[in-house]
């Protein structure tokens, strides 16, 4: 009985549209018109006429390459061009084929560089291709640009429209406000490469001169993401992109939970021997924000219902959605379960209920989602609910998380109907969150209905920080920062500590007097966030002291022998308050074995300093650092730390 298909094939093939040349000409003319107006609307940054004929697609790829990697290696290779300001590299093929592997040097005679304003660089600045392509070893250039494979170029070109070219898995640890632009800044083509905000590493301070160190906490994590994507793409990140505190704070640490009746966060201080210097010590400060109610929250069963219709392919839609869900995924627990249903005409269940700990499996299926197809109708929402219901267990919370760019065109197009559907479904214990993406046909009425109805939560997501706010925090229960303007001040005891330096936090330094000034802004701690700061301190009498005592000014130091390395002061404002509260902790001058958490934090500090080639590391090697990280890995339920170790290995090989 295969006849039906044969019969259908035959009948279907017999059906052909009539040839209608006039209509065709008309349509093609309209399309041409549309093409021309699209061109007019396009940005002026197009290749010159000549190159438009020959170069075509590759410049996009090259541009992308420079967009997603940093420009420095290229600038090394072509130092003459530093002055000219490298903006676009146009590769002119001799043959008429832009898709020839770029490594195939025979096909490319020269690389012509143009400034953004379109003016040509001078003849003598023309670079022979060999200089940036395989074949010649450039004198100082690090590997990246010397070995661009077509594959990579094309891949980057492919990712052009998704923020994830840089962010693929990379902005995932993002935890703060307004740092996305920061993270992405380095990928923006510009004449200047100075897009990283980072100061020179904190210098060694002499306690008798500068006994007080003041800084604002920083829960940003963008730098780690950037470093990761850079290393994963095969080159070491530029030194100025490495902000060590952001790397350290990328990781969740298992610090003691605070006693909420006293303060919204706990402070943990420990001192242990510096891994890379046996004559100094690390002062490790761990701050753990309270996790209101989520500590014992029931497991979540989340069904992502994702609109993958054709219109979702814009960068601020599906790609942003993927990143947002990735963020969310990072905050979930191993006991949580995820399923993904798409409702483009085609798919259905993309991911069967999967434990949140199987991160790569979830990420893979998320990554595979592609916009294309139109809305399937009712099926999507019903299927999502059905799936959520099967995932229910006694003490879990089910939630369907619908993400769409438009009219929630899921079969129920009438707000009233949607409302009653959701209401009815709530009785089954499944909640609904609706996330709108992109703009255009965004339906506020539908959102309102859901919100006012109270059964569902609706939010509009236009940026990753918004995604963080509404998706992650909402789900994890952290709806608001638990402490604002958190500042840390450490006063060192000159009787015990000769020198100190704060590792990282260069961009967060505050003046000593700012600490007590409530008008000075500082970082926030959200529910459940942890913040880590590490000082390397040189005890009095240590052979590691770098600064000799002065001949003419001898500070008489006397603290009546108080046995403390220093005194930690912490100021914060409760949300909505304008006056700050002070917490103080003495730092006893005892040295312990580091906790696993502190050990891992130290290894990330080491990682960052290896990347920045810090002079304080002495002869510390990658291998030693990797061993340290492995020792501090702990349970690593989500695999972040394992990933970090892999990155270190990779970085070691790139060195």
């Amino acid at each position, binding site marked *: 009985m295969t006849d*039906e*298909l044969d*019969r*259908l*094939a035959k*009948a*279907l*093939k017999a*059906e*052909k*549209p009539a040839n*209608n040349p006039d*209509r*065709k000409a008309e*349509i*093609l003319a*309209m*399309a*041409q018109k*549309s*093409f*021309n*107006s*699209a*061109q007019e609307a*396009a940005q002026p940054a*197009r*290749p010159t006429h000549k*190159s*438009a*004929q020959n170069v*075509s*697609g*590759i*410049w*996009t790829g090259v541009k992308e390459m420079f967009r997603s990697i940093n420009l420095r290696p290229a600038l090394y290779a072509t130092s003459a061009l530093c002055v000219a300001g490298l903006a676009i590299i146009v590769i002119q093929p001799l043959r*008429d*084929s*832009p*898709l020839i592997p770029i490594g195939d040097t025979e096909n490319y005679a020269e690389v012509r560089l143009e400034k953004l304003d379109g003016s040509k660089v001078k003849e003598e600045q023309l670079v022979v291709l060999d200089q940036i392509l395989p074949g010649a070893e450039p004198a100082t250039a690090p590997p990246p640009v010397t070995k661009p494979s077509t594959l990579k170029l*094309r891949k980057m*070109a*492919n*990712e*052009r*429209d998704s923020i994830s070219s840089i962010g693929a898995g990379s902005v995932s640890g993002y935890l703060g406000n307004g740092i996305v632009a920061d993270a992405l800044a380095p990928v923006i083509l510009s004449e200047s490469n100075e897009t990283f905000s980072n100061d020179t590493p904190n210098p060694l301070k002499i306690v008798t001169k500068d006994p007080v160190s003041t800084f604002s906490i920083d829960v940003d994590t963008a730098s780690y993401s950037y470093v990761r994507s850079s290393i994963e793409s095969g080159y070491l990140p530029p030194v100025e992109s490495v902000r060590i505190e952001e790397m350290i704070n990328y990781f969740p640490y298992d610090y003691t939970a605070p006693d909420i009746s006293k303060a919204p966060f706990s402070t943990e201080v420990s001192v242990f021997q510096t891994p890379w210097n046996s004559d100094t010590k690390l002062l490790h400060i761990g701050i753990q924000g309270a996790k209101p109610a989520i500590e014992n929250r029931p497991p979540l069963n989340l069904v992502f219902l994702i609109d*993958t*219709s*054709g219109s979702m392919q814009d960068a601020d839609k599906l790609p942003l959605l993927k990143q947002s869900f990735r963020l969310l995924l990072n905050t979930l627990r191993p006991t949580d379960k995820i399923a993904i249903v798409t409702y483009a*005409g*085609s*798919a*259905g269940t993309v991911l069967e209920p999967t434990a949140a700990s199987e991160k790569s499996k979830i990420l893979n299926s998320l990554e595979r989602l*592609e916009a*294309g*197809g*139109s809305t*399937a*109708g009712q099926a999507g929402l019903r299927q999502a609910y059905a799936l959520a219901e099967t995932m229910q267990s006694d003490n879990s919370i089910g939630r369907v998380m619908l993400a769409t760019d438009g009219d929630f065109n899921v079969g129920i*197009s009438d707000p009233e109907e949607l409302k009653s559907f959701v209401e009815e479904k709530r009785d089954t214990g499944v909640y609904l969150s609706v996330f709108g993406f992109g703009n255009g046909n965004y339906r506020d009425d539908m959102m309102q209905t859901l919100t006012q109805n109270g059964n569902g939560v609706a939010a509009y997501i236009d940026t990753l920080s918004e995604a963080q706010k509404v998706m992650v925090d909402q789900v994890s229960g952290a709806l608001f920062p638990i402490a604002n303007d958190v500042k840390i001040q450490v006063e060192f005891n000159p009787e015990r500590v000769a020198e100190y330096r704060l590792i990282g936090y260069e961009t967060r330094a505050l003046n000593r007097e700012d600490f007590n000034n409530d008008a000075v802004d500082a970082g926030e701690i959200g529910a459940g966030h942890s913040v880590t700061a590490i000082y390397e301190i040189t005890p009095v009498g240590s052979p590691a002291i770098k600064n000799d005592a002065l001949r003419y000014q001898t500070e008489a130091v006397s603290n009546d022998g108080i046995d403390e390395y220093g005194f930690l002061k912490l100021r914060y404002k409760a949300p909505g308050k304008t006056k700050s509260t002070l917490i103080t902790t003495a730092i006893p001058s005892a040295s312990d074995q580091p906790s696993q958490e502190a050990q891992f934090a130290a290894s990330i500090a080491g990682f960052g300093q290896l990347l920045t080639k810090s002079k304080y590391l002495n002869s510390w090697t990658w291998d030693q650092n990797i061993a340290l990280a492995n020792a501090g890995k702990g349970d690593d339920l989500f695999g972040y730390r394992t990933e970090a170790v892999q990155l270190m290995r990779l970085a070691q090989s790139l060195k």
Partner: protein
Amino acid sequence: MRMETSDEILVNRAQAGDSDAFGQLLERHYDMILRLGYRMLGSQSLAEELAQDVCCALPVKLGSFRGDAKFTTWLYRVSINAAKDRLRKQKTRNAAQQGWGDMFEMQQHDADETANDRAWLAQAMTTLPTDLREVLVLTLAEDMTQAEASAVLGVPAGTISWRVSEAKKHLRALAQAEEAYP
């Protein structure tokens, strides 16, 4: 002899603003778009409307073509999606009787065998759910392999073969109904 310029080169040129290249691309693929539309929607005028939609949207859409698939694969996808959008709109307008539906109505009253076949086809196409319909159009009428269809539709090959078997079931049920009520 000069070989014909590949689609990919034309696409790249078009993306760089070359309107001739864009024209060549359309000229080359217009018939496919029209044909696909015709078989998805079941009427000449609907297919032409669809071709117009697709062709006019292409200059902008082309910006998002990233070369990770063959251009034709991508174009098939764009066209299928446009067709499905139309089908969906038809549905919401309660106008399911357009296209294949119309043809079904018309052919029913004719007696000869071709008409019979066409009526059957129209009925089958009208009643097939869109996701099955598109798979059949691609695999049966456009002679795509399941792998190719899976690339166009962006679903796993397994889903394609599953849908084909679903479609078979559907057709069989249709045949049985026909026998029961001739």
